[in-house]
């Protein structure tokens, strides 16, 4: 026996064409039906779990009327909450972006004892509950904590203040840039950089002219993920913030308090604003991801 010939190919040229055609179309119809069902299922799943809540928030936020919306955004507490969220996000993204590149370079390029441990530790923030992250910060910097006497002597308050909120947000956002950039670096190899060296470029020139352009989409993707995480974080920030209204209250924490105090309208309006920003980020993330994948090829 030689290679098997498909049954239909044998039948078609000589015999009755009707039978195989009908059989094929029945088969095709069943396949199409299965595919349609799967698409419907996926759509329903996303609709119910994602779009419905979003629609709900949008509905309630807008229902309260323009007056309430204007009033909400003129509240000093709300404005301060957005300001705080923005500050925390920017600092966390800049810090995790900068150190993320350095750690990714070390993980992708260097061999040293304990590399596996470092690699595993990078993922730790994903595995630890944010509330526990907050507790760890309190244990280190809070009253009776290891570092508390030092900072108290300098007159710097860490816990129940902005520094600890930034600190825990950074901790939680550590993995994203590293996990996006390290594989890109590994894939790229070092030859382009070595070529740049032999052409006279210093290590810094090589980084900015050759390495950075090669990893930029992966880096932006990681930074977008970090931002989204920084905006949405509640647990860790809640623990270290002390919930001081108008002082250590981020936008997300404001939403949390608004509902507790039966200020549902304000809660919905702030929540919708945060959601809208996150959706913009998501669009950015998808774009960066696609470009990063394309660049890797």
């Amino acid at each position, binding site marked *: 026996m030689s290679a098997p010939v498909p049954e239909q190919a044998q039948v078609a040229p000589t015999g009755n064409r009707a039978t195989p055609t009908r059989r094929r179309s029945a088969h095709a119809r069943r396949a199409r039906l299965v595919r349609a069902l799967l698409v419907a299922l996926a759509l329903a799943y996303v609709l119910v779990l994602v779009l419905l809540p979003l629609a709900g928030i949008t509905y309630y936020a807008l229902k309260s009327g323009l007056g309430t919306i204007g009033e909400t955004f003129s509240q000093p507490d709300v404005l301060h909450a957005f300001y705080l969220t923005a500050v925390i996000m920017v600092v966390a993204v800049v810090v995790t972006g900068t150190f993320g590149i350095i750690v990714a370079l070390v993980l992708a390029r260097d061999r040293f004892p304990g590399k596996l441990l470092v690699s595993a530790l990078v993922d730790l923030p994903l595995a630890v509950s944010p509330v526990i992250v907050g507790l760890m910060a309190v244990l280190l910097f809070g009253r009776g904590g290891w570092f508390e006497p030092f900072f108290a002597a300098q007159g710097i308050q860490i816990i129940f203040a902005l520094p600890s909120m930034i600190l825990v947000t950074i901790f939680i956002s550590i993995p994203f840039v590293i996990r996006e950039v390290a594989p890109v670096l590994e894939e790229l190899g070092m030859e*382009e950089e*070595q070529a740049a060296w*032999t*052409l006279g470029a210093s290590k810094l020139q090589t980084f900015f002219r050759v390495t950075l352009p090669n990893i930029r989409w992966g880096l932006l993707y990681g930074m977008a993920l970090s931002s989204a995480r920084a905006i949405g974080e509640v647990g860790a920030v809640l623990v270290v913030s002390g919930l001081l209204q108008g002082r250590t209250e981020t936008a997300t924490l404001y939403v949390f308090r608004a509902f507790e105090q039966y200020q549902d309208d304000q809660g919905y309006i702030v929540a919708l604003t945060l959601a809208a920003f996150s959706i913009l980020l998501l669009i950015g993330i998808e774009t960066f991801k696609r470009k990063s994948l394309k660049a890797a090829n």
Partner: protein
Amino acid sequence: MAIGVRQITKRFGDFVALDDVSLAIPSGSLTVLLGPSGSGKSTLLRIIAGLEAPDVGEVTIFETDATSLPPQKRGVGFVFQHYAAFKRMTVRDNVGFGLKIRKRPKKEIRERVDELLALVQLQGLAERYPSQLSGGQRQRMALARALAVEPQVLLLDEPFGALDARVRKELRTWLRRLHDEVHVTTVLVTHDQEEAMEVADRVAVINNGRIEQYGKPRDLYEHPASEFVMTFVGPVTRFRERHIRPHDLEVQLAPNGTSEEATVERVVHLGFEVRVELALAGGESVLAQVTREEAERLELLPGQRVFVRTRRKAVFVPDPAPAGPPS
């Protein structure tokens, strides 16, 4: 002397990549480092470039001690097997990279790049990106990029290794002509002996981290210094406990005082040459290489009885250690 390598040793963990290697490369020459993979030839090239540091030994480039100089300061051009093209830059920016780093005026860069693109026959492709070029074009771009900074020495690491056979042959002929034009001292690493024989002024055969022989291609072929060189730089067959080149075996139809009886097992026509596989009376197999005319004159057919003898004595008596064919 353009490049001096003195007593270089390099280890990677337990593996000895280079073992007390010394080499003097004359100015203006095209020297090939030839050896099997893992022989240390690429490591030696990377040490000359400063991309790798030797454990022991020193490198001089035009009488300057370069051992502790970084690659940026050695005045070398390096071409990688997989092109190492700057993916995010056009061909023009790739070739002009070194000049831009040296902060040359824009106009000068432009003119020099155009000149180089003409030299490597890539005119008209300046605004393309590397991904839009073929492998051969990319490698010519990499060569232009390395030449742009007017290096004192040009180092090529298996430059044609990633290309298909036809392009590879074209490019190496072209490279040899280019070298005759620009005369920059060039060191090329390859595992392909045919490539080495074709382009090199001098060949250093490297095996197990040592230089086995260093000389003109023809000397290597005619007077190999070791069994390894003999077997690596050309075809070899074993006859009367000696290594000889198959074309040094003479096939005759009638016995002669010094010849030995053999049976033809297979006749392979390879164009101009014909490979004849023979079995000696003792059962050992021997390979002979004859011209097409000779094969026709002898009317060689499988099963035929013939007589073989060596044309010349210059051969190699192999070490007793390696296991020969069962006899």
